[in-house]
């Protein structure tokens, strides 16, 4: 049972932007502030995992990922690694990139 989940394409947008809101719409910063941060904190309070569905978007830039999932990691540390589960058939390399690069350093 997944009580806490985000399908990025439907809960945010299918075409994603860059790092910050000042650079254009649907940025990593906007996703973090409007969707990811709150959902993650709700899941943590409830003692559950947050499930992230990556498919359905047109792709992910490194700046978007850093300003959202990287920012979450910088705020909550290793709790993020243990409490987020990614689901994808298309973006395996994105999951690798988040885990091995973005979450490898603060």
């Amino acid at each position, binding site marked *: 049972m997944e009580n806490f989940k985000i399908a990025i394409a439907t809960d945010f947008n299918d*075409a994603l*932007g860059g790092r910050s809101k000042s*650079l254009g*719409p649907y940025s990593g910063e906007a996703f973090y502030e409007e969707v990811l941060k709150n959902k993650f904190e709700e899941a943590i309070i409830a003692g559950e995992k947050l499930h992230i569905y990556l498919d359905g978007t047109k*792709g992910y*830039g490194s*700046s978007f990922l850093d300003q959202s999932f990287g920012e979450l990691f910088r705020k909550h540390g290793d709790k993020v690694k243990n409490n987020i589960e990614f689901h994808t058939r298309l973006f395996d390399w994105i999951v690798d990139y988040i885990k091995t690069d973005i979450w490898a350093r603060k």
Partner: protein
Amino acid sequence: MKTIVFPENFLLENEYISEAIETLSMMISHNIDSYELDFSKVKNLRRGDLMVLVAQIEKSVKRGNQLKRVGNFQDGGKIKLMMSHLFSVKHDKTIHWQINDVNEFERAENLIPEVIAKIVKDLWKIGIREYFYPFNTFLTELIGNAVEHGIKDKEINWWLDREVNRTDKTIKFTFVDMGKGIVESHKKAGLPLKYLFSSDSKVVLDSFSGQLRSSTKLPNRGRGLPQLMEMIEKGWVSDLVIITNSVSLQYKDDNFAVTDIPNFRGTYYSWNINSNNFQKWKTLK
């Protein structure tokens, strides 16, 4: 008033590149605010080179310069048609040029995901029917870098052109931002000491390899260019050329060939995409 005579071969390639860049640079020289542009000798230019010229005109006009066209165009189909449309003149010879009238190229001042998605979708014109996800990422990195480090504080556009060759089933892309350029961005932010005496090509190559992380100095930055490099090395785009500041790089046979050039204040990329690039990604996936 300074007259700038554009060369016969206004091409950002091979032996013509230095002259083309020097001509572009004249349009933003200091202490001059009025230019006459003479295109009468131009015989050869590509659409992508014309777009770079338009981007430089935008930058010059944003600086408050006044531009006039003098002389006629060379006779002969395509070039005359393109230039006549972009550089028509009023009776006072001032270039009648409104940025909103330039419909030939994609452009924007920021990163608009819907525009990128549309450009990727256009690959169907060369038979790529499935969505080429890495190309979306490629463009997002490219445009994100241009906006963040190049044009945001100048209020100018990034520009992109597509030349579709339906016979070869290839699209040639040209992208340019007339910001500071990769090397100058790093220098402005303060290069690490070990780069104090390094060539521009070393700075650019290390930016792409990830050894020189970011001109923002923030520890979590600088992943965009290495991401681009990975896609280039995997063969998801072909025939890449980068021109920025005093260096031109051409990716061929798994290596960058480096050429020193006059300072190009901005960042230029051109590359090709065909079904082989798409198949390489599909196979790897």
